[in-house]
């Protein structure tokens, strides 16, 4: 299998979620709990405060599967979640981090 092919398959199977949330200690457990409760693996997580620090942005790299649409709807219902945006797997945010994750 050549590289383009592999990337295409990855792109098909993965999705990246960009989630804007209130910044307080319980937010991560609310967000991540939705996934773990469904035995839905989160492949990558990034979280940083944005603006003045009252808000954060969480980036999640997740496997694309039939349940993802339902998960996004559940995320949108969380009290501390403002918006959820869905991107394809080739979004730059995780790719640029690859340098930090060399074995």
């Amino acid at each position, binding site marked *: 299998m050549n590289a383009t092919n592999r990337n295409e398959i990855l792109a098909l199977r993965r999705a990246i979620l960009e989630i804007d949330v209130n910044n307080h200690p*319980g937010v991560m457990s609310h967000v991540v709990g939705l996934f773990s409760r469904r035995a839905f693996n989160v492949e990558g997580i990034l979280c940083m405060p944005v603006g003045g620090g009252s808000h954060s942005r969480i980036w999640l790299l997740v496997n694309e599967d039939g349940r993802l649409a*339902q998960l996004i*709807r559940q995320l949108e219902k969380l009290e501390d979640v403002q918006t959820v945006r869905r991107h394809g797997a080739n979004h730059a945010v995780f790719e640029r981090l690859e340098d930090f994750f060399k074995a």
Partner: protein
Amino acid sequence: MTETLTGAQITVRLLERQGIRTITGIPGGAILPIYDALSASSRIRHVLARHEQGAGFMAQGMARVSGQPAVCLASSGPGATNLLTALADAKLDSIPLVAITGQVPRAMIGTDAFQEVDTYGLSVPVTKHNFLASSADELLEIIPRAFRIAASGRPGPVLVDIPKDVQNQAIDIAEWPAPGCPDPVPAVAPGPIAEAAALINAAARPILYLGGGVIHSGAAGTALQLAEQASLPTVMTLMGLGALPVDHPLSLGMLGMHAARYTNLALDECDLLIAVGARFDDRATGKVTHFCPQAKVIHIDIDPAELDKIKTARVGIAGDVAKVLAALLPAVRPTPRTAWLERVESLKARFPRRLTHLDNPLSHFGLIRCIAACLDDQAIIATDVGQHQMWVAQAYPLRRPRQWLTSGGLGTMGFGLPAAIGAALAEPERTVVCFTGDGSILMNIQELITAAEEKANIKVVLMDNASLGLVHQQQALFYGKRIYASRFHAAPDFAGLARACGIKAVDLDHHPNPCAGLLDAINARGPWLIHASIDANEMVYPMVPPGAANREMIGH
């Protein structure tokens, strides 16, 4: 005028301002400042439960009959963990609760302090939202917010964990926040309404499918109007019972696992399913790929995440069901729909609900009907979980919303007695009947004492089959009759036990005139236990075997 108040006093004041008049709970070290502040309140009455799970279910009983958020209190550690089952139950049945728990002081959090448990972490998956208060000041924001969240959209339980030092922290208060009230419901978009109406107008064999959301949004009257206007045969979920009087000509009763055969067979033939405030639970749908195989689906629910979760809808409408149904009414053509109603009638005649031994008050259906005959529609009917629950759902003539309190989603044994007490606390002028089993009653039996103390007008009807009946039934039917761990070989003298708790009791087994005995117990004000033995070999029939399609029912 500026007042200096502690976090505990602020909490109590906010609850008073919220209109809360009865609170259930059990004190303990970490919540004593709040109890101390509560002792000074002339507006809030505290009802002392005998187990925090009991306190949680009493609050549920209040919330289920009133539709308003109810409050329960518990201390840290074991107090909080004991509450969790009642919270999970409220989450699955969308019941608005505000639970307030004490926590160890902030400086001790994370040190494995005495009675420290991660209440916040434990309650994440069983609440709609939760808070860990970090200052007295913050309480002014989060307590009204807790009430707003509990009552907005799809209702649910909210937990507020308050460290003891936050309860003791004194601050100056110049101004109070407005009480938390539900968010306004979203406006109804005209496009989908027109599409839904067109589907209803074009359907030959539509069925209206009503769930608990109809009760929560106060939409029962509008649903009835729609059913009558468009001649829609109507099924209800366990949570939706009471939305339409069961004896209404268009009512097909409860659908699903223990429906009457004709109900499930009619669903099998429908060409349009109008799901309102219902979530396609597996006990309602059976094997979901075989559920209403010919039907297009209209799905109306306040929770957008329910749309397309289990079954894809032709038209999905996220909105308050009362508002959506009201918008739908003028667009739906009045139709007699004679052919379909005749077909449904013929299914009813060929595959009727068989209620046996109705004239014998010592049989399960006879007992239920005899009790119904002693009461009118003002009575509230609570149940525990098991065969008795399903028999009551099948046979009790439920006729009004909020008449029926049952643990649907979580199916929690032990729900019935405390929920009935809560209902009696909220609506003391009504008679509250709790149908229970000899397994379930023991799970919160200690609340009989609370009922006696409160003189709650409850009638606990114990259908005693000396077994965990529903388990016994599953083993008899699906596990080669290997009856294991589902028969009780020892049992208390339940009538004597009730009397020991300060409750009057009548045993129908050896009563010269069981119907008269029942009537006396029901008409006398105050708590009673009514004991009746039931044959352990009776089954809840008909039944959809686990994993089967709804049309494949077994039993008569």
